[in-house]
């Protein structure tokens, strides 16, 4: 499963893994803005940024092939629009869409696969995102695996009862069956949320979460952000001036 692999990758020990999540978020935003606002010499800029991302993947000791393939998840959506642009007589824009969206996705992937998601959310909280929302996201991520598994079981059970039979005749019945399955899944999820809340209260939950550890933003982190963001800007100016 995608998120399980990502979770394992994110618990590595490279220098990139050790950077403060805020440093990585800031650099990611810098990268995305430099890439997203560019209009000229995109081939050169894309090649340079791709090289930087490859260096990042390599230094984080992530498996290159699988990582590059995972970022390709954006391509189906992008390909549709690239195709439309191409048909509309603007192949350059189509190519730009593919390049920009793929590199952006790869950059996000690099950050997420070097930072455990809870730490990333913690970092976002420290940069001002609402804590309540991030806690909701944290619980979502925690129970994503669990509820998905339940849905998986229900799908198997439905298949075992012959729900995969195709054809118009059974459509309405299958539609109702699927709605019933979702209703059961909803009710179970609701009950689970109540259980979780009871477990929280039992251990003295006072209505807010106290974090166990706060990431430390050190000098290495400031150097990391400053160096990378300035490099990215210089690279872009250089390419646009020279090329």
């Amino acid at each position, binding site marked *: 499963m995608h998120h399980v692999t990502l979770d394992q990758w994110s618990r590595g020990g490279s220098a990139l893994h050790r950077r403060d999540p805020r440093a990585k978020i800031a650099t990611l935003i810098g990268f995305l803005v430099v890439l*997203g606002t560019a209009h000229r010499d995109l081939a050169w800029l894309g090649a340079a940024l791709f090289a930087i991302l490859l260096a990042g993947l390599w230094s984080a000791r992530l498996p290159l092939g699988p990582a590059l393939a995972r970022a390709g998840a954006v391509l189906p959506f992008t390909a549709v629009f690239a195709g439309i642009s191409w048909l509309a007589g603007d192949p350059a*824009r189509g190519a730009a869409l593919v390049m920009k969206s793929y590199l952006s996705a790869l950059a996000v992937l690099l950050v997420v696969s070097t930072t455990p998601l809870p730490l990333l959310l913690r970092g976002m909280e420290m940069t001002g995102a609402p804590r309540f929302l991030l806690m909701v996201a944290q619980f979502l991520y925690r129970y994503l695996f669990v509820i998905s598994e339940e849905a998986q079981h229900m799908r198997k059970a439905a298949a075992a009862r012959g729900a995969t039979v195709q054809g118009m005749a059974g459509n309405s019945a299958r*539609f109702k069956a699927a709605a019933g399955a*979702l*209703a059961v*899944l909803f009710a179970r999820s609701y009950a689970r949320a109540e259980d979780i809340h009871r477990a929280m209260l039992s251990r003295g939950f006072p209505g807010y979460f106290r974090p166990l550890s706060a990431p430390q933003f050190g000098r290495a982190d400031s150097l990391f952000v400053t160096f990378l963001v300035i490099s990215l800007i210089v690279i872009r100016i250089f390419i*646009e001036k020279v090329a």
Partner: protein
Amino acid sequence: MHIPDGFLSTPVWAVMDAAAAPAVGYVVRKAQRGFDDAKVPLLGVMGAFVFAAQMINFPVGVGTSGHLVGGALLACMLGPAAASVVMCAILAIQALVFQDGGILALGANVFNMAIAGVLAGYLPYHLWGRGRGRRAAIFAGGTLSLLTSAMLALAELMISGVRMPGPVLGVSLALFVVSALVEGAITVAVVAALERIQPGVLRAPSAGRSPAFAALALVAILLAAGGVVFASTAPDGIERLAMQTGIASHARTLIATPLKDYQASWLGSGWPAQAAAGIAGLGLVYGACLMIGRKR
């Protein structure tokens, strides 16, 4: 319809991020106020439910299938503010973990699906959710929710200059309408099934029907419809607007002065102008959102 990074032009994503930020702050505050501390696990698990619900296929026609998107269902079950928060969390996890939707484009996706989509999805239920027309209201909510999100996304893409030839536009609009109707049907079917197994589970629309809410939801829907019309009549609309109002030229001198040497190369790309227009729009929208947030 999760917009990846690289699709939206700078002013569009900047304005959408600026619009989404205070809106999210507002729904978070409202969601937190309405409930007790049980909300964090409840909303988190509900988010996981919506994720997992995508695995359950609903047959639509021969051989094709759809799945629940969930904005309207959550709005009926948890109330609009909590539903917005859940959808925000879903979109954030999708963007980060699944590379589904961009980071700079997160504001746009949040605004389309978690804010406007949820508001539009709740509006019919808010207005007619008590009487006999409740089922119809839930159906309309699901439909309207998806339609609003999709139209907004389409408008943003077109304003960003993504080409949409007439026939393609027609086909995508038709596809949107079909999937919106499917969402409506799924929402109403799930609610019906849920009421059979757990009577009384549905939240009645809140007693004090605030006209401000209805107005906001209507604005979201009109924005979606108007956006597509505007975008299709005026390609490169934002850029031209920025030029006409003179914001761009002001910004140009402002930004370019300290960087005289680079002026030619910077201005050739036109991105400072775009960025400035974006920032100006950002300020306006931010102020408007704050005022709306304050009032209630």
